């Protein structure tokens, strides 16, 4: 997945990768979850995948980073299939999990520096500096020695982003980055995704059902339902796409009587 041989400064622009998914199928216990997914993400683009719960968004994301193997179809990064471990290892990819997935037995600093520590990419004192800088980049100070259990949901997400950024990713995947967050924290996370695009030109794939986040950050949006892509386009194109399922999803709201 990630080459351990990266020593870029996180401030240096890195070229995002082109991602192509062709005919992706996946079933669990005979139940089809992905039903022939085709999509293309351009280098440096923020590509949002929206859809109702259970539509296969997170499963798709796990395929993109190699946590799941497809039953059929292929995933190409810069034209090369990532099903070969040697090819996958040439690219630096990171996933920001919905839950953050921080290692609860490690401090925040150890979590963020885990990749560098385990692959022995820098001496410990240098890792400390990089970790502190990375945490500051995502707006967190004085949390290095805290345990994940001492952090709020928003802080955990930002630590998870810092942990993803430390590998200097060419492709960064976000799984429901604003779930369980208050509106202000959601905006902070959304702005962070936009900042990263501006700063390091990383290719970003964001899976969400948060309409505000999707239309706030996306260059293009794909709507997925029942394991199939319903439509792909710019936010304006998706908003005007004439399909009852898409329109229902985008316009769903409470109706108060009276």
């Amino acid at each position, binding site marked *: 997945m990630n080459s351990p041989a990266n020593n870029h400064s996180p401030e240096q622009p890195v070229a995002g990768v082109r991602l192509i998914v062709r005919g992706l199928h996946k079933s669990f216990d005979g139940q089809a979850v992905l039903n022939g997914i085709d999509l293309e993400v351009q280098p440096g683009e923020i590509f949002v995948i929206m859809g109702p719960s259970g539509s296969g968004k997170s499963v798709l994301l796990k395929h993109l*980073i*190699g946590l799941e193997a497809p039953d059929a179809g292929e995933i190409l990064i810069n034209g090369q299939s990532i099903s070969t471990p040697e090819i996958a290892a040439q690219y630096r990819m*990171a996933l920001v999990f919905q839950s953050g*997935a921080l290692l609860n037995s490690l401090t925040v600093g150890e979590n963020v520096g885990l*990749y560098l520590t385990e692959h022995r990419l820098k001496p410990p004192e240098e890792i400390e500096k990089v970790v502190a800088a990375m945490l500051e980049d995502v707006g967190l100070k004085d949390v290095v020695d805290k345990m994940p259990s001492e952090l709020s949901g928003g802080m955990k997400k930002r630590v998870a982003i810092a942990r993803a950024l430390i590998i200097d990713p060419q492709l960064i995947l976000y799984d429901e980055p604003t779930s369980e967050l208050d509106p202000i924290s959601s905006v902070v996370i959304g702005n962070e995704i936009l900042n990263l695009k501006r700063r390091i030109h990383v290719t970003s794939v964001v899976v969400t059902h948060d309409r505000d986040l999707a239309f706030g950050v996306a260059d293009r949006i794909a709507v997925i339902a029942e394991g199939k892509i319903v439509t792909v386009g710019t936010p304006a194109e998706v908003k005007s796409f004439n399909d009852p399922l898409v329109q229902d999803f985008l316009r769903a709201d409470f109706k108060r009587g009276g």
Partner: protein
Amino acid sequence: MFENIGDIVLLFWRTLLALPHAWRQRQKVLEQFFEIGNASLLMVCMLSFFIGGVICLNFGPPLVERSFTNAVGGVVGLAIALELAPVMMAILIAGRIGSAMAAEIGSMRVYQEIDALRTMNINPIQYLVLPRLIAIAAALPLLVVFSVLVGWFGGAVVADLNSHMEIPFKAFFADMKDLVGLKDVVKGVIKSFFFALIVGVVSCHQGLTTIGGPRGIGRSVTKAVVNSIVLIVVFDYILTRLLLNE
């Protein structure tokens, strides 16, 4: 349990293949080693003392009645060194350490921490299983040696103080020396090394295959302990048979 035996063997094989990375994981090995020691030493001490005492109490009076007084030390010494110390310590470690391993790795699996490791290209077998397996394989034989010594001491105390035996301390150990040799202790230690591998691999396997939420973790912990104990007892027979003529 038996449907997973292939997966357990595969995990063991993969962990063996990861052995060249052991030196890099030495810090985690030491942490696990001291955790096992800290968590178990007092319990091992108590358990061994009373096991030694109760074995002496069961076998001592009938032997003394039949004028086999000088066999008491040997019988107690052999029973503890060959069987009771390795098996009882392995069962204790399965309950105390195996359960903790299954719970910790299981919760990491359920809360996607293991997926997070994989996305960072960190091999969970090298990072989680290898240090635990090395630590338990080093710690259990040492605990067994300690247990044998404490068990013998417990037996000697009971033999000396019990009115049905009243075998002096020195005589107990002198009698024991006639029957029990270093090779008997070594046999027990060899068995405990294999028991440690069983507890380590079975518990880590249960942790890594945990599914579901907290209930799934609980199920994994129970299975780790029960499966470990069953395999310890089965392998105890096999190993005893193999070591019989050595």
